[in-house]
């Protein structure tokens, strides 16, 4: 299997899907963002230039254009660049796209893809670091995809393009350079199937996007230092959500840490906690711990940013805490 970066694998998937789906268009396209790996998408830009519409800075109109184009048979990808900018257009995402199929009693489909990069980036400060997973999950009708590995990016992208539903596909600038072996031909990865990134017996850690890798590092740390065996699970899609894989894991380990880059209150971690405590009450040896951004805007200052960041160290600390539950 060839080794590829996340950006390369996603680019290959863009090429494959554009080839297979002539109605796939992009308004605009800024894959990789400011990452040095943005240049890995050059083959896509070169080959499918006619699929890409450069666009003004008009998030709400672009999101709405995506809705209308999808309704009429295109497969539009609306790229709002950073998830932070999705707020400007969110009315069309959560209160239009998400409702179309339901409001028409299943008669109209709206297979638009909203694409954004999400996650805290160094030095991006309060306004450019917003993570919207939770707001989107709180809005029924949207599929939410958060690929954390090169193969997942490629495979989930294929499923997103084939989806009959509005889908929010969010990648992470810091993952663009991540390398892994990727099959020459990546198959579509079904939504709603979590990935057990790492097996373990003592503690379950649930994480998405860039936090998955940090959870794995935390797991390696605590295994080495404290002989705690950690299972790391990446749900990969929040909607649909693979509750079963997580429940099975917690039934085994009896301990859960949820690590996530959304703000703490009403964040993704809160939802995972609420579901698991209900399903796994008898199996849990102690309360579920959350490792999240605190209820604080992201500061620019490096040492301040470090205080709020979701790091392997903080995940490891939470794992050690829950490991003590008997």
């Amino acid at each position, binding site marked *: 299997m060839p080794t590829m970066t996340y950006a390369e694998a996603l680019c290959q998937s863009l090429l494959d899907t554009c080839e297979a789906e002539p109605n796939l268009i992009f308004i605009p396209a800024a894959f990789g963002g400011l990452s040095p790996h943005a240049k890995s998408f050059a083959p896509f830009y070169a080959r499918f230039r006619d699929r890409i519409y450069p666009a003004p800075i008009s998030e709400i109109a672009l999101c709405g254009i995506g809705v209308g184009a999808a*309704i009429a048979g295109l497969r539009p990808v609306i790229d709002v660049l950073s998830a932070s900018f999705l707020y400007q257009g969110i*009315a069309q995402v959560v209160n239009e796209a998400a409702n179309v199929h339901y409001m028409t*009693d299943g008669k109209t489909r709206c297979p638009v893809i909203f694409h954004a990069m999400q996650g805290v980036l160094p030095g991006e400060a309060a306004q450019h670091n917003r993570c919207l997973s939770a707001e989107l999950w709180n809005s029924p009708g949207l599929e939410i995809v958060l690929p954390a590995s090169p193969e997942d990016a490629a495979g989930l992208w294929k499923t997103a393009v084939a989806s009959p539903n509005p889908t929010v596909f969010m990648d992470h600038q810091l993952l663009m350079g991540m390398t892994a072996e990727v099959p020459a031909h990546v198959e579509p990865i079904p939504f709603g199937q979590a990935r057990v990134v790492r097996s373990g017996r003592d503690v379950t850690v649930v994480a998405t996007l860039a936090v998955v890798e940090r959870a794995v590092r935390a797991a390696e740390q605590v295994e080495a230092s404290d002989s705690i065996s950690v299972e790391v699970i990446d749900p990969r899609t929040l909607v649909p959500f693979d509750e079963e894989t997580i429940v099975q894991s917690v039934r085994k380990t009896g301990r859960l840490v949820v690590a996530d880059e959304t703000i703490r209150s009403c964040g993704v971690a809160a939802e995972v906690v609420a579901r698991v405590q209900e399903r796994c009450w008898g199996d849990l040896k102690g309360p579920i711990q959350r490792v999240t951004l605190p209820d604080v805007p992201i500061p620019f200052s490096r040492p301040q940013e470090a205080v709020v960041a979701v790091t392997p160290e903080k995940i490891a600390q939470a794992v050690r805490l829950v490991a003590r539950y008997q």
Partner: protein
Amino acid sequence: MSALREVLRRMLFMRRFEEAVIALFERGDFEGHYHVYIGQEATALGALDAIPPTDYMYTTHRNHGHLLARGADPTGLMAEILGKVGGLVGGRGGSYHAAWPEGLVPVTSALVAGNIPQAAGTALAIKRKGTDQLVVCWFGDGAVEEGAFYETMNLSAMWKLPVLYLCENNSVPAPYRAMGQYPSSTHAARSLTDVVAPFGIPGHVVDGTDYEAVRQLVTELAARCRQGDGPQFVEARTSRWPGSYGLWPAQTGGPFDVRWVWEPAGAPEEVREWTASSDPIVLLGQRLAAAGQLDPEGLSQLDQEVKGEVATVVEEALAQEDAPAAQTLAHVFADR
């Protein structure tokens, strides 16, 4: 002219239909906020008679008239308003979200300006596919206050999309309907057509109570639009029906009486001035009468027929089951 008689009949049907809606609401047959199209009937008919059923249409919270003029089944619309299983969208949308996907009215946003970028998106799909369809996009003067409107004007002008933007300014006093500037209390522009000019979108004012004027203008603009000229903007001016002044529609002055065509002064005071100057049914009826095409008896008979039809619509819609509880969780997502 005999064609105009048919137009009058359709306007009368819309009017009786919406009077029935008001009565049903007041009787408690449905809940929620709703909006009626009374006074704007000529606009929808004029515009939609100018475009074929193969074009797309997006409407708003004030959609009853657009859907009826488009040819949607009145019983389906009434059932939708009542939340019945045979509603146009299964009783799940209600008046706010009445739509007619089979008739290329794919979905109805009840948010001001919500549908405008959607219409542009559908026009983009059309352009990419290379058919000669276009998209009719209805909205009120209020939508011109929303940022989404401007963003979409810019984009659709740049991309030369085949959209007809039909803005219904329903708050214009009668003397200003046909021409000239007309300032709005919530817009700094002296005329709404001015705001699209900088984007290179042609703007046109038309008297929205005049079926023929609307039809003629839209016919011409649709041709230009289909030709690849890009979007066109129409401000259709009508005057607000007194029953639509409050927070809720109210049958101010009682139901419309066809005798007001001959004697608008006979209308109750609350609606008298509006009836004489701004009711499109009265205005068209008077034209037909003046041309010898309509007499009181004929109109009365027409009205009886229409009332009968509407009564049947109401009866059939009321007879349907409510959209079933068992289906509540269906269609959040489409199946793969």
